[in-house]
């Protein structure tokens, strides 16, 4: 943290210039529904500094890129576009496992402002796993054309995480997005996600299970979320947990093994 503050106190340096402090390398995951302009955001932020490959052992494409903001080095990981994190498909499982086990410093959820309701499902699910979330309310230009208004302030206070309205196609407000990413990563903005309250019976069951499993669940993983997944009968989380524990929870856990390659 001390290092981080040191870097922040330096004069902010513009995008592509290489920062002097190589230690500050932050990871940002980019999640979102399909067709929300997620790739446009990814390309706009990282420019030509990209690296593509596959997720280990999966035939799902993985893209990584870098950007520099406020004298810090951010690695942006593009997750597969999904509607939910219920792990119904390989895509959803890859996205969920990355957010859950690779623990990025910030997770950005790109949403479509023209059909916010559907997109919020994913936002709420991501917030159940990690509090470090920034919502990118994209396609604002299209929403304006369709005469749809979204109260960004209210949305932010309802969710308890920063919301940035953007139009990635024209690059509008992407600097604000980067500011928000940095603010959440550095802890300057403290997020307090408003979690979904389920009906009382489910809440009781969740509490009961949470009590049982919380001594067993590795730190950094949200026991409430694990309890919920057990309740909805998701066996794949057990497999993923096992694999995670077996392969060690160090930072080079294989989700991140390609990172070194990509930075060279």
């Amino acid at each position, binding site marked *: 943290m001390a290092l981080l503050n040191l870097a922040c106190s330096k004069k902010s340096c513009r995008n592509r210039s290489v920062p002097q402090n190589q230690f500050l390398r932050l990871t940002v995951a980019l999640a979102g529904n399909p067709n929300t302009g997620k790739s446009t955001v990814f390309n706009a932020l990282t420019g030509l500094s990209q690296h593509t490959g596959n997720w280990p052992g999966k035939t799902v494409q993985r893209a990584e890129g870098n950007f520099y903001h406020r004298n810090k080095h951010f690695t942006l990981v593009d997750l597969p576009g999904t509607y939910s994190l219920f792990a119904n498909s390989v895509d959803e499982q890859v996205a969920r496992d990355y957010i859950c086990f690779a623990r990025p410093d910030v997770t950005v959820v790109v949403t479509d402002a023209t059909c916010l309701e559907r997109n919020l499902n994913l936002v709420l699910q991501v917030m159940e796993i990690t509090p470090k979330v920034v919502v990118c309310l994209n396609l604002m230009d299209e929403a304006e054309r369709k005469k749809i208004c979204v109260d960004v302030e209210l949305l932010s206070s309802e969710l308890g995480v920063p919301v940035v309205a953007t139009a990635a196609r024209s690059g509008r407000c992407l600097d604000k997005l980067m500011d928000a990413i940095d603010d959440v990563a550095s802890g300057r903005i403290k997020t307090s996600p408003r979690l979904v309250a389920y009906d009382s019976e489910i809440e009781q069951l969740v509490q009961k299970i949470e009590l049982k*499993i919380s001594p067993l*669940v590795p730190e950094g993983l949200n026991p409430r979320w694990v309890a919920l997944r057990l309740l909805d009968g998701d066996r794949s989380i057990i497999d993923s947990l096992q694999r995670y524990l077996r392969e060690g929870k160090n930072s080079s856990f294989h989700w991140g093994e390609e990172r070194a390659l990509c930075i060279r």
Partner: protein
Amino acid sequence: MYQVSSHGSLNNALDEIYGSLPPEEKNALRDRIAGGIYSSAERIAGKVVSRKGKQINWDQKIDDVLTSRCLGIPVMLLLLGVVLWLTVTGANYPSQILASGLFRIEDILTGLFVQAGAPAWLHGLLVEGAYLSLAWVVSVMLPPMAIFFPLFTIMEDLGYLPRVAFNLDKFFRRAGAHGKQSLTMSMGFGCNAAGVISCRIIESPRERLIAVLTNSFIPCNGRFPTLIILSTLFMGGTVAASFRSAAASLVVVGLVLTGITVTLLVSRLLTKTLLRGEPSFFILELPPYRKPQVGRIIIRSVLDRTLFVLGRAVVVAVPAGALTWILANTFINDLSLLSHAAGFLDSFGRLLGMDGFILMAFILGLPANEIVLPILLMSYVSAGTMVEPESLAALHNILVVQNGWTWLTALSVMLFSLLHYPCGTTLLTIFKETRSLKWTLIALLMPLSVALLVTFTLTQAARLLGLA
């Protein structure tokens, strides 16, 4: 750092907790958890989103009808009926032209063989066997596919298919399968091989396998002609001539509904036995209705679907035709091999309401379902080559007068055709998609046992009740 032992105990604890939940409740819990998230999303979106000005939402209005509780299914059946009717009626004429053209080529080929002084067996094998079966498959399959696939693609482009999936989702969910199976099932109407390929849209391997295994319960274009001819001959014959085609189409629609029912029942059975598991959620995005791009539709459906499926069918049909010719023209004790085999199968066939020749035709027709009826007629008249049923009267004569078919025989043949194993092309596709010999074998044997069970029960019941 965590000790290695901790994941063992974690796993045990999770298993214990998971096992302590009653299975019925698990499904309900899943729905309620998803419901909790959705209602939160709805509440927040309702608060923060507002619309300036009023616009009539046509998509919403159309969807209110097409996906409504009471109208959704009838509208769907009606559309299916219209598409089928267009396909059947429209395919008739080009089919005849193609057939006459291709059979004229056969005459030319025969002439060439005679001129070249080729031995009779070579001519028989290549022309009467291989070429004729090729001609049959092309003339019977190509026109319906060329009409059905573009119609289907138009529905797709309009955005209707996601609504079908929406309507049928609850039935498939209740059967423990994936809602998208309704889409792959619809593809099966065109061709089961294409239907099997389309199962790729189902992400969960368990549910994809269910969709692959049950796809052949939907009559494909290759089987529709058989069903239509037989139902016109037997079921339509009982009513006045003017209603004949309507009655026949009703029988075909009834068979289609039977196929769908069996699909659901077998899917349910599979989720309880071989492919246990919970149905997975999927968020179905109902896309806006769009004006279809006719040019692109035609190109895409002809190149991607019609030619692709036809190519595979031809590859299988040619050797099958040659084999049939050999069987029908190899004689032992004055009887062809085909007749020997049919005699052997006869008593078994009688139990199912059919006879040995019919079963033999189904066995020889494994490569492609559309050659079942031609092979059957060929073995009935022992002409040595496949005959083209020139008119319904001639067919009636062969089946009823000479070989004693009753309505029960016709119904048994139609049901067997509907339910029996998928054709060779489809089996090949299933193998390519699953990369597993085991599942391909199950895809062959499971429908076969269903077909045997159904025809056996029907026949015995009808005989017991004195109906036939």
